């Protein structure tokens, strides 16, 4: 009997809570098109751009999350409905995920253009850091298939006007696990040097019909190699002291973020270029887009445009769509209309405002026709007529004919030099031409900046541990001391409080 009032009260409380829950659920579902939180994962190639897009989405009140787990993982998660959207450079079939997305239905929405940079950490024989390394496409392919194993290889000298590097083994840094960047890079390798690639792939029993997305299943693919799990770690390692004599492939944005030198790659026109926005967009003019917007890149790898950077590719956002292949419309594909609402507003932002800053952080904005394709994809999701994007309603700098700030490439520091000495002896540079390459900076003859690596403003500055060391340690100690001090005070009070 005694329990009754309590029980009654408890019951009342329970009913109140239940009602509140029902009410809130009702509010969530009843409001219909109020934006819902969307989660995506996939490509780390696009992760730096995503960082900005997600941050901008948050400030404008859209709840967007993105996890750079790698393209293959993103596509799998999307196929299993664990993610609302995925980021990828390659279509499902190229990443051996054939059929993964079929049950769900999908469309490829282009998001940005990017490039894979070849990062390195090398010194010349005098011990000076080399930051002007040039590599031909074939040399790159031979290095990453274990055909060139030392830095003193004549092929590298030939690419660098006779510069002879020390006789050190090349340490190839690669992504562990499954990665779309690995897939893209080795697709490039397979395309530019099939005679080297074929036997190498066979020796390591790598697949040749789809892209190679995982190298560590055969860790001996080059004599000396080292795996890292993420783009950040690769850039950090190569840039750091332990990364000396290393070379690796990574998204260009990370080279900027961590200030790691990226190799000048010689394209099919014989010109050496870095992956700046103008070079990426020039290369992607040769990309062949299939009807579903996915890309065929062999034209890019072999582009004869003199300013084209050959390892460029578009990145895509994969969203849900009708299951049928011809996709007249994707309307109502997401069961929660709030997801469609968030996704479409966000995609509209990516198509235009989202492109403004891309050149600065190592990407290249979408060309107008692909921005328009984003608008068409939005129309497919909403079922409305597609919005026509023009310079008036879209901030994408490509509509105005430029790629935005930071997109112009620097001047090749060794272009007008006849030969580079190996820097032996006194350490003075033997430069027999109009310019010189030496220990302290470079001079260029083209009238550009004197320091080509400072040409483009770096958007993100890598965290410097050293500068704020003292304050950080102090803060940490303070935080750690709080529980101890509080505990001590409590203990003393308790001691004083107890009699005796």
């Amino acid at each position: 009997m005694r329990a009754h009032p309590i029980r009654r009260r408890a019951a009342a409380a329970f009913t109140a809570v239940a009602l509140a829950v029902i009410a809130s659920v009702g509010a969530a579902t009843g409001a219909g098109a109020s934006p819902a939180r969307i989660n995506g994962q996939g490509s780390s190639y696009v992760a730096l751009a995503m960082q900005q897009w997600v941050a901008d989405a948050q400030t404008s009140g859209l709840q967007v999350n993105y996890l750079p787990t790698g393209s293959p993982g993103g596509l799998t998660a999307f196929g299993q409905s664990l993610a609302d959207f995925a980021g990828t450079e390659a279509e499902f079939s190229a990443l051996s995920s054939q059929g993964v997305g079929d049950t769900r239905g999908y469309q490829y929405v282009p998001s940005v253009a990017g490039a894979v940079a070849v990062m390195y950490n090398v010194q010349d024989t005098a011990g000076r850091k080399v930051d002007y390394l040039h590599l031909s496409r074939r040399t790159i392919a031979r290095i990453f298939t274990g055909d060139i194993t030392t830095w003193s290889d004549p092929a590298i000298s030939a690419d660098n006007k006779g510069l002879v590097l020390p006789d050190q083994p090349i340490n190839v840094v690669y992504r562990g696990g499954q990665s779309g960047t690995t897939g893209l890079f080795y697709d490039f390798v397979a395309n530019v040097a099939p005679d080297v690639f074929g036997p190498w792939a066979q020796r390591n029993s790598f697949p040749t019909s789809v892209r190679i997305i995982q190298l560590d299943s055969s860790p001996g693919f080059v004599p000396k190699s080292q795996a890292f799990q993420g783009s950040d770690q690769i850039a950090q390692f190569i840039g750091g002291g332990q990364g000396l004599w290393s070379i690796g492939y990574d998204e260009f944005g990370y080279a900027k973020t961590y200030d790691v030198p990226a190799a000048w790659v010689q394209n099919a026109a014989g010109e050496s270029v870095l992956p700046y926005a103008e070079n990426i967009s020039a290369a992607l003019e040769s990309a062949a887009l299939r009807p579903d917007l996915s890309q065929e890149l062999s034209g890019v790898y072999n582009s004869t445009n003199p300013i084209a950077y050959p390892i460029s590719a578009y990145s895509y956002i994969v969203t849900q769509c009708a299951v049928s292949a011809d996709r007249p419309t994707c309307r109502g594909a997401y069961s929660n209309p709030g997801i469609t609402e968030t996704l479409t507003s966000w995609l509209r932002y990516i198509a235009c405002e989202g492109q403004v800053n891309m050149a600065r952080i190592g990407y290249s904005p979408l060309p107008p026709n692909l921005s328009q394709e984003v608008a068409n994809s939005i129309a497919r999701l909403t079922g409305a007529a597609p919005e026509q994007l023009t310079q008036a309603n879209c901030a994408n700098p490509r509509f105005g004919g430029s790629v935005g700030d930071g997109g112009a490439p620097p001047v090749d520091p060794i272009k007008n030099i006849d030969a580079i000495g190996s820097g032996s002896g006194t350490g003075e540079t033997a430069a027999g031409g109009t310019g010189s390459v030496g220990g302290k900076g470079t001079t260029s003859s083209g009238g550009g900046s004197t320091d080509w690596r400072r040409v483009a403003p770096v958007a993100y500055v890598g965290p410097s541990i050293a500068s704020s060391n003292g304050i950080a340690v102090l803060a940490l100690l303070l935080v750690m001391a709080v529980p101890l001090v509080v505990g001590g005070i409590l203990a003393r009070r308790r001691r004083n409080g107890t009699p005796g």
Partner: protein
Amino acid sequence: MSGIDLQDPPTPPSPAPGAGRTKRVVTEVPSVVDRRFNAITMGAGISVLVLLLLVGAFLLIQSSDAISQTGILRFLTRTEWRTDVQPPAIGVLGLLTGTVLVAVVAVLFAVPLSVFCALAITEYSTARRRKWLIGVVDLLAAVPSLLFGLWGFLYLSDKMIPISTWLSQNLGFIPFFHTEKNASLTGSIFIAGVVVALMVLPIITSVTREVFSQTPPGEKEAALALGGTRWGMIRSVVLPYGRGGIIGGSMLGLGRALGETIAVALLLPQVPQRIGDSIHILQNGGATVSGFIANRAGADAFTVSGLMAAGLVLFIITLATNMIASVVVARSRSGAGVDL
């Protein structure tokens, strides 16, 4: 005894005369609240067991695809992990070697440190400092393992290189310390083990501390009274008394180290060690089951199934280690009152 005493409780039927007060039968009629409480606590206890079984069953079901395609024996004895060839060939042995090696390195570093730490706390410090020290050591357990990993990757790796270099140059004749020519010494099992050692330090310290603090004061005083120094007393009384606790605590730490994930996922390249290769703990390389799973989780369905199978193996090994540890502690003289 006259039988007139009314205060006497009702005696059980036919007590033997002269036997005095026999044992009273206590009949307990638990109240509703008691019964509820009993049911709730029992339910909580059983639910832990059920949860454990469900986890095991889940892993078994999820891994069945990979195991049936590979064959249980081949899965356990192979080292390569290839899902990009047909038929896929996956084996857990390369991961297991790495896991065990990291855990062993961690325990080798952590046990002496923890034992001395526990001795300092129980035997050498004043009551007030004891509280401080316990708090500080426990604080170490509160640091997220991701932070340990980042710290190890960004800071400790570089600082450990000279030690690794020295070990390989001077003790290279010991097979484990051998390194290949020109090998990179970052991201090694050795460095990962040292970082994990810091993470298992609190658990080993707290178990050994608990055990040491239960050393009978009489025995300690006897040792001191016989003229022993404090260190002599520790050696002859505290350490022998606490041996079971040290072993058990170490094994418990081993169990922890086996399952440590994020830090090793960051520190090791997570490329499985191949069986033909000799083991190089000082040079770049190695993978652990949990770190491998963490890095590969976003992969195709078959890979995930294989990862589940690897997880199942780790689950069984960790469970066995922890159970052996608790048995060792409970059976030792010192550990009788210690709950693990």
